[in-house]
């Protein structure tokens, strides 16, 4: 592995930030403003794509921007793990920016400029987190994401919005200040640096003689510090944050924000602690059991929710823990399964949220019980929804199957039947809360008021802005199930090193 020092990698982070500025100055011209978002998104994706060959060749890109104190720098380092996250997030931003146009204009939302600015900056900060080369940089961008998504959550500026946003910021800020900050300081005291060990996932950065008790405490602080990952008991902010407009729930609460959390946990486990130390202290297995609780409990709660977005929110909580579970089992197969779920879950869950938003704008429906026979009016939307549900459940050949396959292999590698059972039960639960929605939409009885309505709701131009992205993401989530090689190869580069 070679490390190439290049300032080019700042571009990926800068484009969204500049997009935010351009959106701000062109706030009075909606068409120009919204095209800036899309152009910014496309450029961001292209810039990530341009680094892909180098990363696939086994090299890494690095650049140090500022030095605060010896060992504490603002440093970008692009490795395969970061590439996966950056690719997924930037690609989905393109679709989400189109979708936003349809949604925000369709509902005639207020303060759209503020919305687009915060949206772009949040994505930019997520890119920064993906590219982070040390814990401080990760923390910096993690916090920027928290601050800039706050206005998005309270976008409606009503009582619910304020309450949800307050909870959101309290959960995220409290955990990062109370747990992450001391964890970072302790790591710095023990290791003298905060730089990730991106060369090998086995060794981490701790000196061999580090006190295992302190390492354990630090690990727990990190695990709870990244509350964005939605691991129980710190998951409560996520369902409440669903008061935000649906594009926010879709991109941010299915892809960017929560993935920054999960990505950070994976990053810390693999590049700060390393699999050796986690294995030796048993922290890996402990984490696996711990997140298993989240996987099952959140699924059960999802079963009880009748609001579609709330059900999706709890499903997110549950699915995020798959990623952590995979990494926590610490075998090559399980890590592959966990990390590839970053992509699989992103494509599937954004499709589901897009569909929920589309249904709301087109028909004004939020509750699952009202959606009987909806597939007649919105066939494309509901087919995509069905595909994405299959991915969540883990049916071949959709993306989620690859995840579950590798996770199951992982449980067998460590001969742990408890975790295998967790996987099986949770798949059943996933089916339990998604299948009824799909069945209802295709075969259910419409509400009396909707009786006999068969006219398509998807034909209006603004609705098209929403349907097309969600069809694309739905199709992609099948494609990455059939051809998972792009992501698998990248993960192999990490796991094999």
């Amino acid at each position, binding site marked *: 592995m070679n490390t190439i020092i290049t300032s080019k990698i700042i571009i990926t982070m800068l484009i969204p930030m500049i997009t935010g500025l351009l959106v701000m100055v062109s706030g009075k011209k909606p068409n120009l403003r919204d095209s800036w978002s899309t152009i910014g998104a496309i450029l961001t994706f292209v810039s990530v794509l341009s680094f892909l060959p180098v990363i696939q060749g086994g090299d890494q890109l690095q650049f140090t921007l500022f030095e605060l*104190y010896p060992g504490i720098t603002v440093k970008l380092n692009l490795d395969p793990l970061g590439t996966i996250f950056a690719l997924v997030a930037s690609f989905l931003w393109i679709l989400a920016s189109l979708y936003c146009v349809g949604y925000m204009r369709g509902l005639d939302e207020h303060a759209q400029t503020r919305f687009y600015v915060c949206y772009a900056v949040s994505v930019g900060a997520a890119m920064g987190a993906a590219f982070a080369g040390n814990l401080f940089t990760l923390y910096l961008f993690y916090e920027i994401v928290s601050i800039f998504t706050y206005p998005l959550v309270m976008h409606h500026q009503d009582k619910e919005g304020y309450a949800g946003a307050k909870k959101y910021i309290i959960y995220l*800020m*409290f955990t990062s200040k109370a747990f992450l900050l001391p964890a970072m300081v*302790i790591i710095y005291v023990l290791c003298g640096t905060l730089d990730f060990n991106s060369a090998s996932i086995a060794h981490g950065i701790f000196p061999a003689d580090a006190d295992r008790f302190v390492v354990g405490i630090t690990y727990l602080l990190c695990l709870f510090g990244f509350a964005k990952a939605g691991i129980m008991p710190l998951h409560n902010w996520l369902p409440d944050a669903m008061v935000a407009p649906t594009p926010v729930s879709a991109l941010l609460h299915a892809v960017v924000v929560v993935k920054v959390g999960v990505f950070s946990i994976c990053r810390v486990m693999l590049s700060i602690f390393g699999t050796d130390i986690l294995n030796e202290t048993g922290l890996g297995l402990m984490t696996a059991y711990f997140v298993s609780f989240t996987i099952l409990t959140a699924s059960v709660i999802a079963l009880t929710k009748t609001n579609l977005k709330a059900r999706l929110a709890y499903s997110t909580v549950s699915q995020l823990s798959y990623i952590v579970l995979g990494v926590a089992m610490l075998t090559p197969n399980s890590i592959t399964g966990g990390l590839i779920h970053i992509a699989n879950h992103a494509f599937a869950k954004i499709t589901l949220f897009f569909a929920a938003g589309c249904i709301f704008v087109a028909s004004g429906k939020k509750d699952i019980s009202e959606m009987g026979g909806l597939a007649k009016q919105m066939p494309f939307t509901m087919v995509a929804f069905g595909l994405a549900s299959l991915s969540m459940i883990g049916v071949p050949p959709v993306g989620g199957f690859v995840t579950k396959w590798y996770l199951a292999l992982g449980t067998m590698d460590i001969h742990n039947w408890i975790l295998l059972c967790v996987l099986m039960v949770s798949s059943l639960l996933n089916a339990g809360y998604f299948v009824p929605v799909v069945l209802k939409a295709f075969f259910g009885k419409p509400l009396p008021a909707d009786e006999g309505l068969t006219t398509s709701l998807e034909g209006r131009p603004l609705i098209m802005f929403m349907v097309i992205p969600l069809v694309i993401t739905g199709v992609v989530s099948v494609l990455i199930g059939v051809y998972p090689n792009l992501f698998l190869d990248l993960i192999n580069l990490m796991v094999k090193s």
Partner: protein
Amino acid sequence: MENYLILNTLNFPILSLLLIIPVVGAIVAMFLRGETLLKYWALAVTLVTTLVSLPLWTNFDKTTAKYQFVELRHWFPALKLDFVIGVDGISVLLVLLTTLVMPLCVLCSWTYIKTRWKEFVIVTLLMETAMLGVFVSLNTVLFYIFWEGMLVPMYLIIAIWGGARKDYASIKFFLYTFTGSIFLLVAIIAMFIKTGTFFIPELMDHSYSFAFQMWVFLACAIGFAIKMPMFPFHTWLPAAHVEAPVAGSVILASILLKMGGYGFLRFCLPMAPAATVYCMPYLLALSLISIVVGGYLALGQSDIKKLIAYSSVGHMGFVTLGIFLLNDAGIKGAMLQMLNHGVTTGALFILIGIIYERTHSRELSDNNKLGMFMPIYVTFLGIFSLSSLAFPGTNSFVGEFLVLFGAFQDFPLVGAISILGAILAAAYMLRMLQKMVWDDSDGHAHHGHDDHGDGESHALFDCNAREFIQLAFLTIFVFWIGLHPTPLLDMMDSSVAHLLHQIDAGSVMPEAVEHGSTHHALLENAGTWIKNLF
């Protein structure tokens, strides 16, 4: 004497000029007429002072711990009392902070101060000389003169241009600080009797008995702790801040509070090292209490100025915590934190002044939903609030991180408790930000935009160019220190190393080691003790 000093090599007496320019400016101001002329005169004088001070930054020798730019004039030979001024790595940044903040104090009073501009200009300029004098004095008598010299102008600023309870606040301020200074004077005289010199570097080098050190330490520490202000001497600060005019608050927050920290570093630590080591656990405990109590009280305030005032108590707690950790990271962090607090809290008080001029209220509930009317103002408010809660990438983060690093290095338990302060800072700052920018929860809009027809009189216009310049100027420092603090840390480097050397050398006294080690052991073992619980 000369081996402590590097005489000024610039072709002009830079430090004397810094002290003289404001005084001359004040004298000239006596003969000027017309408010506008006085305003511009004050601005010009403070700006010239700033310009004159800049060579301190460019020509400072970072490699030595000696005092630089020194000017030495014989004064009272009989008492071996010389007029000697100079700066080292500990004071130079505070001098620069003072000269940079003073023009802002004039600018932020531009429309805020409505009466007696002549007196205001004179008092403000005299204040500048006194504050600079404190930082550059290398002689305890000179130090004390300037130290007391600050008291009167500050008293006048609060008592003349203050708010409704200005009499109470100004008297309280005066009595608290003056009581502290009395103890300081006693210590200065006692040290003179013991050593026969007023020259600070010589006083540092003299080795005193442990008992004497304890008395000196306590006398100085009370004076500085009041100035800081440290719990339980902090009650004068909220009163003074709330009643002071905006310039008064800025001077208080940005510079006056730093005197306490500077005093600790200049007097207590090097002159009474054994006593410092002995008292360290108590001062660490008081610092922790300040951090938590300050933060906790700030959380409950509905008056924005009071909120920021209590937050200062918490921030200053971090400063004393850093100082008394007695390690490199802690002291550097504390010094950086003093500068950061000067920049950030100064800016926050300017911001409060701006909004007070528009709504005539400092209540949170009267100043909400500003995001809709004053986007530029709110942007700055956001930046400085985040800086105040030590958001990564801003100035306070670096300072706080260094202090925490110092704490976790030696006393993990202390570090763990101080994290509480960081959490509280996030809580009260975000609460303030949320209420001011968005919330209109009590449902009544005060600004007369929507229902009242009298909107014209208190229309909420956004920042004007003058206000924008002040805030933008301080914003540069927020990000500069936040992302590239290395030049500042380099300037402190030699002096802090020297200070730590003085403490190490001075604290190896049998009696002190005995006392000190038991306390150390207690703190150090706390971690192992907790560990054994599991």
